[in-house]
């Protein structure tokens, strides 16, 4: 067992966990942040994507101990109070989700995609970049629409800041 200290959604947290504990289980089982999901055992599906120090990472590929000292943002931490993150709003407005299970990982990946491409995205790029996230419901059609829509919204939001 080890005590792991890190920052999650802006708050300093610590948890006493088995050394083999994955970050995703630290979040879900110890911190009750159940928005981050587990959809596979092989780091293929992307349902568990969170941001570690601003980069999208599959939280099932990281031991909790490896995340010590870092700043983790989960799906629960991206809205500003009642105001949704532009990516969240775009998923809702474009019907980019159905059962909702892959959605948190999709949104966290998509935010990172927009950041890495400075908002300059086209359909082919979005489809290519989403290959680490599996959705079984939507056929990706509306997810792609949502990411492109959000890229525009995030530019506007950034310009306003």
């Amino acid at each position, binding site marked *: 067992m080890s005590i792991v200290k890190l920052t999650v959604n802006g708050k300093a947290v610590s948890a006493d966990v088995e050394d083999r504990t994955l970050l995703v289980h630290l979040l879900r089982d110890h911190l009750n942040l159940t928005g981050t999901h587990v959809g596979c055992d092989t780091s293929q599906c992307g349902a568990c994507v969170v941001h570690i120090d601003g980069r999208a990472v599959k939280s099932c590929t990281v031991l909790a101990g490896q995340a010590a000292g870092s700043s983790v943002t989960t799906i629960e931490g991206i809205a500003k109070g009642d105001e949704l993150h532009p990516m969240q709003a775009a998923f809702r407005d474009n019907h980019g989700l159905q059962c909702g299970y892959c959605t948190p990982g999709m949104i966290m990946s998509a935010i990172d995609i927009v950041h890495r491409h400075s908002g300059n995205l086209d359909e082919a790029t*979005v489809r290519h970049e989403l290959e680490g996230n599996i959705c079984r419901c939507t056929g990706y059609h509306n997810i792609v629409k949502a990411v492109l829509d959000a890229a525009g919204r995030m530019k506007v939001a950034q310009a306003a800041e």
Partner: protein
Amino acid sequence: MGVEGIGASVVRKEDRRFITGKGRYVDDIKLVGMTHAHFIRSPHAHAKIKSVDTSAAKDMPGVIGVLTGQQIVDDKIGNLICGWAITSKDGTGMKMGAWPAMAPETVRFVGQAVAVVIAETKNQARDAAEAVVVNYEELPAVPDIRAAIKPGAPQLHPEAPGNVIYDWVIGDEGATDAAFKSAANVVSLDITNNRLVPNAMEPRAAIAEYNEPEEHFTLYTTSQNPHVARLVLSAFYNIAQEHKLRVVAPDVGGGFGSKIFIYPEEMVALWASKKVGRPVKWTGDRTEAFLTDAHGRDHLTKAEMAFDKDNKVTGLRVKTYANLGGYMSLFSSSVPTYLYATLLSGQYNIPNIFAEVISVYTNTVPVDAYRGAGRPEASFVVERLMETAARQLKVDPAELRRKNFITQFPHQTPVIMAYDIGDFGASLDAAMKAIDYAGFAARKAKAKSEGKLRGIGVSCYIEACGIAPSKAVGSLGAGVGLWESAEVRVNPVGTIEILTGSHSHGQGHETTFCQLIADRLGVPISQVSIVHGDTDKVQFGMGTYGSRSAAVGLTAILKAMEKVEAKAKKIAAHQLEASENDIVIENGEFKVAGTDKSLALPMVALAAYTAHNLPDGMEPGLKEGAFYDPTNFTFPAGAYICEMEVDAATGKSSFVNFVAADDFGRLINPMIVEGQVHGGLAQGIGQALLEGVVYDASGQLLTASFMDYTMPRADDLPSFKLSHTTTLCPGNPLGVKGCGEAGAIGASAAVINAITDAIGNNKLEMPATPDRVWHAIHG
């Protein structure tokens, strides 16, 4: 249509919790004192269990109990059942072998549960499972249909000689044979319908809690139909009486059929929670999903179509072998029979049809309904035959279809179904226009000049949804009625709760069902809540599958609403001193027509509950229920056309365009309907190009993870061009047909027709991987 009424693309009410990470799925739930289960599963496809030694595991840290298959038999927990009886052509019943929730003596597929460890933590349960020693005596395995039907093949169940579960026929064999004898042309095809894994993104999970003084169980489970789960668990599995078992299906992360069935893990969790006196949680991992969720499809078919000299179809003859796996899952028997062969007429006027279906046991995961369930297999047979015939007869494939379309309705097919309405020409026209069918020859020539192979493929599907008239399915062997129930509760302050037996696991019922209420009463959907997925709240229901929730579930709500409106009008008329017949409902108000007198819904509701001034003899309250049993299936239909380009050097196929023109009757929420079509198309395309289960000769599942089984990803798929044509379903008052499965039913044939057109070789199996396509091009 109001801004939130029927026909409006209202943004979903349920989305906010999902996009903020506040959805509540089974694995998100923690109970006080909760323990964790881990199953010990067979590594062999077929074996005798010589011994199970749990002694070392019992001494491991945190272990509360280790339970075995023998104990579940000793406790008289019932075997899993198949709820649809199929009769063979010789009049005998289906040959069902016993399926205990954990195997006491024999295992028949890799992954079958043998024992379970219950421990304080998930890791402790997993560690202890490693210490359970099971001694097996391996038996020869039957990994597929061909091996199962070989003379002298190893036997799976003593009840099923030759591994045959039933040999079932439908249609007129003599008349069909005669049609083939007098045919001007006959087209024939051998078809493999590849085996698929549903792979809802949320793995199955269950939490069971036993309250000893009350002798009461609660089960949280990933179910598409919690009431059916409760019924089966109580009536057949001897776990709890129905009134002592609450089943809750909270947010469920996709189902696609795989979460209809009651699985061993839920049974064991319930049984174990009583044994250990603590709540028991089991959450499957992805490999367990591959090894235990019911698989889909898996047919071997020989199909022939007869044409007269005018290219009219005169007969269809089909022989199909269906793989049901190692045991018969809950509705497995019905999928390759009544959900498959009854759709073999497609959109065409075919006077003579005969089909024989032989279902067999193999040492593989049980096979049951997966999105479309039998109808994708039927549509693939018919649409591959049509395309093949057009090439053989040297006529345009779209025009050959059009020549044979059914144009008069109602139309009785030779295989039970009576199509109520449709306009197949309209959807074909819409799809041809959307893809510029007329311009294809020029595009193909241009592609050829650039060294690329270009092909176009048509698929005109029909399906039977709105499952189903109870009397009809009862006469065909179903063990349940397939009506739906609803209750409308108007609260004293005028807000409304709709209790429904339908269950949403991605379909958006919390929005679409509210749209009906907004349409009827003119109240905002924020005033309406949908209650579902809890047997303590909703009295009964049959759940969501078979694209039934609008046609059957929403119609039940409408029937209950009509009763509420009738009573509310009486109350309003009494309060307003007007005639009940003069009351109209507009914008949430009960108005006396032609006057300025009105009473808002909250005032009517309050009057109903205060009961100070009600008409003489009227009961207080404003709550009504209804059970709705449909009179017929509904028949969504449409035309899909796919244009593909193949790189001859690599065998890689790429989409140029995919268009879909569907007729679903009235659309409640077009945005949600289109989402359903997108998802269905992705699964149909996945089957055609990417997905396929592979077992080796010993029965080991080689495709047991997302590393090995190709799920469609964003860059495998195109953006889709959708359109709708409309004939209103005459069978229900809303005119709706259902849209959940269409894409999965129609898409595969369009893709394979396009690729085989491009490469000029009709022999190509699914999934059409680059390797297979390359070999089809180069021999």
